[in-house]
């Protein structure tokens, strides 16, 4: 039973695999779109040329390889991480409205980053990432406290919104008071990939991937645990250890995202729901696998739309996602309220 990969034998492997493949295909298309479209649109042939043999002298190829490629990869990483973060949180607090943005985990991480900037001055990227992880971890524990016993209640988004608004008020205070910070963090503050570069990507990708890996490994145990305390104990699951690992997964994925792109909301809400809709029968582990490409393609599409719609300016990722995600949230709330009668 403790075989962590036994999920592969559950829930119709072949069907799940087919859906997974389909989703990754969509992600690949979105990835190609993200490389082609932007302030200037390039034909796919040029992208292919740049990827196959890169000519640094060619301005268009330089833009594609130097700016769009890292940004598209960062979007995929952010999307997949947030989707997994949201999914694990939803499972642990047993609330379909849990999302690192709505519950204030992202805001807590952002607060930690900005507080570090305030106290210590400009920080190297590594320290920023560390602070984001610390803040995300602390805020995730707080979410657990706020969620209380873990019923299906609607208090979590309220408590999260209250906590997040306090954090973000302090964040904007610091950012507005520091002239240097204002220029750098103005877009980061609302969630944007404009600051995501190659170095940040290389440093944070392993962190986020480890988080996703942990989520995959403990998915089955979390599922069993959530059936009820005694059931888990009878099956030889250590609740404390499983929950800690779950929180570690949330912290690593959400923290890495904030360090890379600021507090981005709603992917953690939408992607898991879409993943569950696509494959309602599958277990948590399969849903984690499905949520990754779902989140990645959502982030890619939202970021491309943000760059393409208002060019030459760009809409930050966080704002595009809020405009899609807030109605989705309202729809979910409506369904939940109707369902609780």
């Amino acid at each position, binding site marked *: 039973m403790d075989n962590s990969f036994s999920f592969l034998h559950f829930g119709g492997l072949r069907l799940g695999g087919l859906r997974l493949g389909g989703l990754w295909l969509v992600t690949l298309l979105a990835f190609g779109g993200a490389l082609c479209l932007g302030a200037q649109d390039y034909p796919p042939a040029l992208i292919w040329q740049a990827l196959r043999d890169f000519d640094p002298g060619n301005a268009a190829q330089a833009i594609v390889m130097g700016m769009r490629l890292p940004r598209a990869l960062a979007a995929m990483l952010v999307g997949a991480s947030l989707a997994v973060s949201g999914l694990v949180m939803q499972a642990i607090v047993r609330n379909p409205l849990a999302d690192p943005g709505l519950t204030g985990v992202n805001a807590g991480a952002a607060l930690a980053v900005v507080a570090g900037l305030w106290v210590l001055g400009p920080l190297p990227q590594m320290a920023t990432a560390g602070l984001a992880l610390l803040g995300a971890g602390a805020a995730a524990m707080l979410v657990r406290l706020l969620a209380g016993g873990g019923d299906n209640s609607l*208090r979590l988004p*309220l*408590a999260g919104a209250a906590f997040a608004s*306090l954090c973000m*008020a302090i964040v904007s205070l610091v950012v507005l008071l520091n002239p240097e910070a204002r220029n750098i963090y103005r877009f980061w503050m609302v969630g944007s990939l404009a600051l995501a570069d190659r170095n940040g990507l290389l440093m944070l990708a392993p962190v986020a991937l480890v988080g996703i890996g942990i989520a995959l490994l403990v998915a089955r145990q979390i599922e069993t645990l959530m059936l009820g305390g005694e059931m888990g104990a009878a099956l030889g699951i250590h609740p404390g250890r499983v929950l800690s690992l779950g929180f570690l997964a949330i912290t690593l994925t959400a923290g890495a995202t904030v360090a890379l792109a600021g507090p981005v909301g709603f992917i953690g809400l939408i992607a898991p729901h879409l993943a569950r809709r696509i494959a309602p029968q599958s277990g948590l582990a399969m849903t984690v696998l499905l949520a990754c490409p779902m989140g990645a393609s959502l982030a890619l599409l939202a970021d491309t739309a943000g760059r393409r719609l208002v060019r030459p300016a760009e809409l930050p990722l966080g704002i595009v996602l809020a405009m899609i995600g*807030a*109605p989705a*949230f309202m729809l979910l709330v409506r369904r939940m309220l109707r369902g609780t009668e």
Partner: protein
Amino acid sequence: MRIAALALLTLFLAALGLAAGRNWLTLSELAQALFGSGADARMVWNLRVPRLLTGVIAGGCFGLSGLVFQSLLRNPLASPDVVGLSQSAALGAVLALLAGLPVTLGAWAGGGAAVLILAWLAAHPRHGIEPRAVVLQGLGLAILAGAATEALILRASDGDAGMVMTWLGGTLNGVGWPELARALWLLPLMLPLLLAGRALDRLELGDDLAHALGLRVGALRAGLGALAALLAAGAVSLCGPMAFVALAAGPVARLAAYGRPSPVTAALAGAAFITLADLLARSFAPAALLPTGLYTALIGAPVLILAVWRQTRRDAP
């Protein structure tokens, strides 16, 4: 007794607000400026008096509308700044500003749209409007309207964008006599709500009991709600969405009025809150000129956390 103390506090803060600024005035200097002439008098009368009075009126509107919403929906979280009414009014105001239309009309249109959307989303086929649904749907509406406003700003020209950004933080910067004249239009709208204390008190007993006491419950609710929405949106058009003023004024007023929903007290509390926040904004870091709304958010967010905490403990099984 407590109400008198609140009124005194408001007066004290107002006097401090007139004295404070880049150059502080002593009490005697302030008196001279108010009743005499000279450079100080020009500064006080041209800048500080209209700013203070506009803030007081806007704060009164926020406080009143917060109390009325909280009372009608029997939920301390159901204030216009939590359920997205302020944010929608701000969106409407920005749209009007960019289109060259009167800002107040835009704010009213936005606020009205928010009320209709929330009523539609939270209406239950049998139980009428559900307060819990209003609060949660409002949370989504606030995020949506905020994001739409940010998107609009990014599309605006740089000059417009800078102005709108500060205004969106909630600010009284640049407020003068023309703005005060606009604010005075809100006073007649405040009057019915200031006198509605008894009605609110009875409505809180529950619809059946209120009906038995001879109130026309449905019409009363609709009328009070519409007025409160107009006031909140009107205040937004004056000084931007000052975060959490409406939210915090209600509970403070209740505390001062021994648990009763006293509109006069709520208006006082809102006025005192904005005056205090503007005082802080002008006293600390005057060079950076932080938006006043940032201070109301910093003071008000803990109130929100407390309200959520108390409510969830009460709701907990």
